[in-house]
Structure formats: structure tokens, C-alpha cells
């Protein structure tokens, strides 16, 4: 690691609370029953290809992503399909799902479960992309965008760099940190797989300085990969946001409404790289992920390798059980995660953490008048004016909201986090985004 970089505009420094940084990843046994959502990713839900009564193994395809932006879904357990109907998603809505009762732990034969590292990459680029799609790999940082789509670079776009996100800027979360420490070579080979899939010469990995051990070990092991560079980044939220990460490492800015592709990059998370390693080198589709289960009053918080579809309650049980003072349970981190309504919600491919907040931590303070302190403006990494966007949304001035670029908001939450008046800035900005989208659609159609 040579250079310390960061993004120059906006940002905040929430307390890190990375309690579980030193807890090695523990493998969580499958629960008695999993509910695997067919729409865990951005895009169209997969279509179920199993029926009630079918027996499945770990790795059996149970949902097929047919649309261009969609993803396959595999069984994460072995057992019998109990029903194909609905289950709660993180937002509390009932969504199509496959519910499987677990029997034993039998894996599909093609999957190589040996611990041996497979270094040699023999798969050609197009095949890698196809198999990433087949394996149901999506962005593991939280957004869950189908990974293969990013690797199908449209005609006329030039891509020169693969950017790998090891920032994990959300407070509390340590899953990626542990991956980089405990699965260093797998992650690096995964990065190399993705780099070849993208057919670029350069892959850069950004890791924040609060994970100096990860920077050290990743840099050291990366010496064997001539195309991979590791960068230490100054700790600043939201550095793990795609646009901020690209700016920090490559000093390129992705304008509002544009994609990393437009500035010649593709961004993926270290967890996604590991998933790519698993599929391409070990024939192992995406059936589990590392989840940080944490919170100030949780007795055995830690990082767990959890089968997709495992209910939150099962993971929380493994981490010491639900403390009595918990008032809010979050899928993901405190800045961008979703508060779940129910502990029966199941872990998806995008669930990076399960965070339990007690009453005091969960409480929102009373909102008072905006004092025009301009903290929200200087905290916004996109250069928006959150105080103004809130005001416009309250007055339902959607056209002006649009003019003031409400759609560019990346929902990082820095504005609401910093506001001394406790204004629910992002709540209103999200509303503004929905309304402006509606307005645009209405005027387009």
C-alpha cells in the first residue's frame, strides 16, 4: 500500500462500532426451514423451477432469472420443498419464495467442497460471465445488482479498470473485513476472475485504513497478481458508495444519472469476488454469505457464514439470542440498512449484517426548526442541498425537486445523520425521488 486516498467532497465520520472486527467467521448450521426469496436482487424476480414435494440439494437451481436483469436462485440446503408461495422480505412485504424444510446437508455433486485453493484460471471470459449469471451472483455489498449485467459492456463503451470495494464503510459491519483476512487468496483469485471477465488490464482494490491488517495481508498476497493494486483509503463515510470509491481511487466522477461504465469502470464488492471464485474455481453457486450479527447488547455477536434463506431469528439465536432491550433490527448497516418489521425475515444475498439497536440507539430525537447550519450541504457527497430538497418535498414542489437534482441522491444518509435539528431529510428526499420518477413517467407516457 502506497498512497492514502479519499473522496474530496462531503462525507461524515459516524462512530465505527466495529465490535466484531476480531471475530473469526463462524459457520452457522442450517436452520430447520429456509425461505428463499425469488427476488433477492434488483430486477425481475426469478421464476420458480421446483414444486412442492421436490427434493433439493445444496446448490440445486430453484429459481431461474429469465429477464435481462434478474438472477438465478439456488437452494442453500438439502431437503424437501414445502411450498412455493410467499415469504416476508426485508421491507415486510410478502414476496414469492421457495420454502424448504431441511433434511441433512447434501450438496450437488459438481460442487468442489475441498478446502484446496484452485489458483489456475482456465475459464474464458464469456464463459465466466455466463457462469456468474448461472450461479446467481449479485452484488454482495448490499445493492444486490446482478453481477453478470455489469460485465456485458455495451457497444461503444470503453472499460479500463475493475474497481473492487473492500471499504465496508458502514459502521458495525465487519463481514468483508473478515473475508479479506480469512479468505485473502480466494478473494484475490476472484478479483482476477472478474478482471479477466471484464478483459481489462487493471484491477484496483480500495480498503479503508481502519482495516490496516486487511490492507497489509491483501497487499502482500496481491504481489503475486501483477494486475491487481491495493489502495488504503482514509476513513470516511460513504467511501463504499460506487461513485465515491471511483473518485477516491481513480479520481473520476460519475455524473448523476450515469453509471461507472460511463467513466470506464465496473465496481464490485470483495464478497462478490469471493462468490466468483467459488463458482468459477469450485463450481459452487451462491448459496451462503458472511453476515455480521451485531449490536451493543448482543452477547455473542460475530461474523457468521449463513445459508441464504435463514431467518434472522436463527442467526440472532446463534449470536446469543434476542436481548430484551432491542427496539430496532436492521438488515445491513445503520446508515443505509433497512429496519425489518419481523424476525422471520430471511437472509438474502444482499444481507451484509443484522444489527440490533436498543431503545436509546433506535430513538429519533424530536425534530426542530432548520437553523441553516449548512452541515447537510457540506456533508452531501453528491453536492446536493438536502435542506432545500426536504423543503421542496414538504411543499410538494416536484418540478423544483427535479431541477435541484433530487434524483442524484445516493441515499447515503449523511445529511440526516449530521443534521443538528434532527430533520428527517432523507425520508423526504426519498419521497421526492419517488414523486419525481412518477412525474417523469407520466409526462413521458
Amino acid at each position, binding site marked *: 500500500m502506497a498512497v492514502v486516498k479519499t473522496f474530496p*467532497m462531503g462525507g461524515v465520520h*459516524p462512530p465505527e462500532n466495529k465490535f466484531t472486527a476480531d471475530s473469526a467467521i463462524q459457520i452457522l448450521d442450517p436452520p430447520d426451514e429456509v425461505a428463499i426469496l425469488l427476488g433477492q436482487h434488483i430486477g425481475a424476480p426469478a421464476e420458480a423451477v421446483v414444486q412442492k414435494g421436490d427434493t433439493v440439494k445444496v446448490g440445486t437451481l430453484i429459481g431461474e432469472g429469465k429477464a435481462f436483469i434478474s438472477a438465478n436462485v439456488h437452494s442453500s440446503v438439502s431437503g424437501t420443498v414445502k411450498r412455493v408461495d410467499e415469504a416476508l422480505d426485508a421491507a415486510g412485504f410478502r414476496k414469492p419464495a421457495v420454502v424448504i424444510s431441511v433434511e441433512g446437508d447434501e450438496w450437488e455433486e459438481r460442487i468442489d467442497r475441498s478446502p484446496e485453493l484452485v489458483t489456475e484460471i482456465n475459464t474464458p471470459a464469456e464463459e465466466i460471465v455466463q457462469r456468474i449469471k448461472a450461479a446467481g451472483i449479485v452484488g454482495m455489498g448490499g445493492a444486490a445488482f446482478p453481477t453478470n449485467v455489469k460485465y456485458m459492456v455495451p457497444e461503444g463503451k470503453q472499460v479500463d479498470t475493475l474497481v473492487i470495494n473492500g471499504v465496508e464503510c458502514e*459502521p458495525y459491519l465487519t463481514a468483508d473485513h473478515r473475508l479479506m483476512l480469512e479468505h485473502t487468496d480466494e478473494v484475490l483469485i476472484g478479483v482476477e476472475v472478474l478482471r479477466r471477465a471484464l478483459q481489462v488490464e487493471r484491477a484496483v482494490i480500495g480498503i479503508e485504513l481502519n482495516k490496516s491488517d486487511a490492507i497489509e495481508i491483501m497487499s502482500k498476497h496481491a504481489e503475486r497478481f501483477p494486475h491487481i493494486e491495493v489502495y488504503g483509503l482514509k476513513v470516511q463515510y460513504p467511501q463504499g458508495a460506487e461513485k465515491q470509491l471511483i*473518485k477516491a481511487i481513480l479520481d473520476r*466522477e*460519475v*455524473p*448523476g444519472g*450515469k453509471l461507472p461504465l460511463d467513466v470506464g469502470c465496473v465496481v464490485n464488492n470483495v464478497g462478490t469476488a469471493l462468490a466468483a471464485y467459488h463458482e468459477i474455481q469450485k463450481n459452487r453457486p451462491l448459496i451462503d454469505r458472511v453476515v455480521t450479527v451485531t449490536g451493543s447488547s448482543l452477547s455473542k455477536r460475530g461474523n457468521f457464514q449463513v445459508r441464504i434463506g435463514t431467518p434472522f*431469528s436463527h442467526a440472532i439465536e446463534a449470536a446469543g439470542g*434476542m436481548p*430484551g432491550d*432491542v*427496539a*430496532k*433490527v436492521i438488515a445491513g448497516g*445503520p*446508515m*443505509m*440498512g*433497512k*429496519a*425489518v*418489521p*419481523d*424476525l422471520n425475515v430471511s437472509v438474502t444475498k444482499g444481507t451484509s449484517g443484522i*444489527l440490533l*439497536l436498543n431503545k436509546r*440507539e*433506535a430513538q*429519533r*430525537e424530536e425534530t*426542530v*426548526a*432548520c*437553523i*441553516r*447550519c*449548512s*452541515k447537510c*450541504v*457540506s456533508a*452531501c*457527497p*453528491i*453536492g446536493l*442541498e438536502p*435542506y432545500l430538497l426536504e423543503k421542496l418535498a414538504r411543499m410538494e414542489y416536484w418540478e423544483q425537486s427535479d431541477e435541484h*437534482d433530487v434524483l*442524484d441522491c445516493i441515499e447515503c*444518509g449523511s445529511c440526516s*445523520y*449530521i443534521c*443538528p*435539528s*434532527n430533520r*428527517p431529510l*432523507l*425520508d423526504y428526499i*426519498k419521497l421526492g425521488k419517488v414523486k419525481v420518477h412518477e412525474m417523469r413517467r407520466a409526462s413521458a407516457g
Partner: protein
Amino acid sequence: MSQTLIVSGSPHAKSDLTVRSIMWGVVIALLPVFAVSAYVFGVRAIIAVLVTSAACVVTEYIVQRFFLKQKPTVDDGSAVVTGMLLAFNVSVAVPLWQLVVGSIVAIAVAKMAFGGIGTNPFNPALIGRAFMTVSFPVHMNTWVVPRESLLSLGVDRATGATPLGYIADAAARGEPLSTVAAELPGYSQMFLGTIGGSMGEISALAVLIGGAYMLYRKLISWETPVVFLGTLAAGTGIFWIIDPTAYADPLFHVLAGGAMLGAWFMATDMTTSPMSRNGKIVFAAGCGLITAVIRLFGGFPEGVTYAILLMNAFVPLIDNKFRPRRFGKGVAS
């Protein structure tokens, strides 16, 4: 396992920053200024600050409670800030009842009539000061000898003027500055504060200590005071270079009168200054420039109050024209 869970939008974390922590932070930053005014002007200064602060708090409470029928928010500390700044902006010779009137105007008229905290376009303390200058010109322009009659409760001893007053008088008489040179304090006195003037405007050092604290606590951004004072120095410096016998030098202008207090504590007022960084720079440059123009050519010796109030009026316009640069726009990528 049947706890009801709170469901609300992200983020689920909130910084410790509150309106209260900001305003009481400014109060702390004002303490060195307070200490110097007590040291230089004695008991009267302490009483004056307590009276204005109390009058501002009580006025705000009464207006909120009985007129607007809101839950009073005086514990946020903003009225105390206004009260302290009002006292620091006037002479220790001003009678207490006039201080009370000024406080009432500052809070009731300049702040609450516009809707209270966050909504007032003009700096309340400066409106209070401007009102008092017009209404009570005699006392507002009576300056007390520093370090004398420290324990006296009344005001009897008056000297001629403040440093800025001396040079304005010389200019009015058409005489060169050298005629008043003997009356002018040295720079070290002006820096430390053992000079005549408004209670909080005398010591540049005290203001700087408070300013450093506010920078450390991120209560202000450095651009505002630096650009304000820089513009003032540049504006007055041009004339000094042209004719040093008729015009005071830029350092004098920066240290004299309300420039330091205004640049660090008044132009940085959150509510009445622009939101974007560029906006703040334009605003501060305007304050510095207008201060220079009033001091050099105006009828008053001092121009900081009116400069800031005038620029306050331009804030909506500045906010509209100087927006933060949107990420990805205006750069080659």
C-alpha cells in the same frame, strides 16, 4: 420474541450534533471575549452581559409561550448567544434599560417576528445594535476609559473616542492621521484589548481564541472570517498604499472596531449567512468590502454592523446563485 420493532427509514444513526450543542458551543467560544471585557471594563461589563442575555431569553420565552403559543425552546441557547453578542457590540456606557430595549428588539422583532430560530433574515444582535445606535445615539457613542473605575456601577467617566473614532474625526477635519497619532493605541494594545470601544470588540486575541475553538468544534468554516478580514485589509490597504498620511494601514483596520468580532462571530451566524462554500466566500467578501467602504468614505467611523446587515439581505440571492458543485458536473472526467 414478540418485541414490537420500530420501523423507520435510514439512516438509523444520528450524530451527537444538536442545535443546543452548537449554540452553547458558541457561548463557550464567547467566554474569552467576556473575560477581557470584564477585565477591561469591570463589574459593569459583567452586569451588562448578564442583563442582555437574561432579557433575550425572557423575551423569547414570553413570545413563544404567550404570543405564538409554542413550546419555548430557550434552552437551545440561541437567545443567550444573541444576548451576549448584543452586549459585546455596545459601549459599557449604555444604561441597562437601553440594553433591555435593545434585547427586546433583537429577539422580538428581528428573530421571533420572522418565525423564530432559523428563519430570521438578519442577525438579531446586529438589528438590536442598529436600533440602539439610532435610538440612543448619545450613550451608544460614549466610550469609557479602559481599566478605570472597575468596580463602579454607574458610568461617569467618558473619553473622546475609539481608535476608529479618532481617525474618522481627523478625516472629517481634513487633517492627516499624524495629528491623532498620539491618541491611537499601539497594535499590541489593540491585539490584547486594553483600548476603548464596545465591550467585546476590544481584544483581537480573545476573539481569535474563541474563533479557534469554533473552528475546532466545526461551528464555523474558516472561509468566512479569513475572506472577510482579507477583503477588508485589501480594500483599506489600497488606499493606505496610495496615501499613508490620510489612511490608516490594513492591520489597524483589521484590529480596530468590530471587524474581528464581526468576522468571527456575526458573519458566521448560521441562519443569516449562505449555505454553500462559495456562497459563504461571496458573502464574506461583500462584508469586508462594504466595511472598508463605510470606514473609508462613510459618515460613521464604523461599518461592520451595516456591512453584515446589508449582506444578510443578499443571502437568498447568494444561495440561489451559488450552489454547491454537483458531483460529476463541471469537471472533466
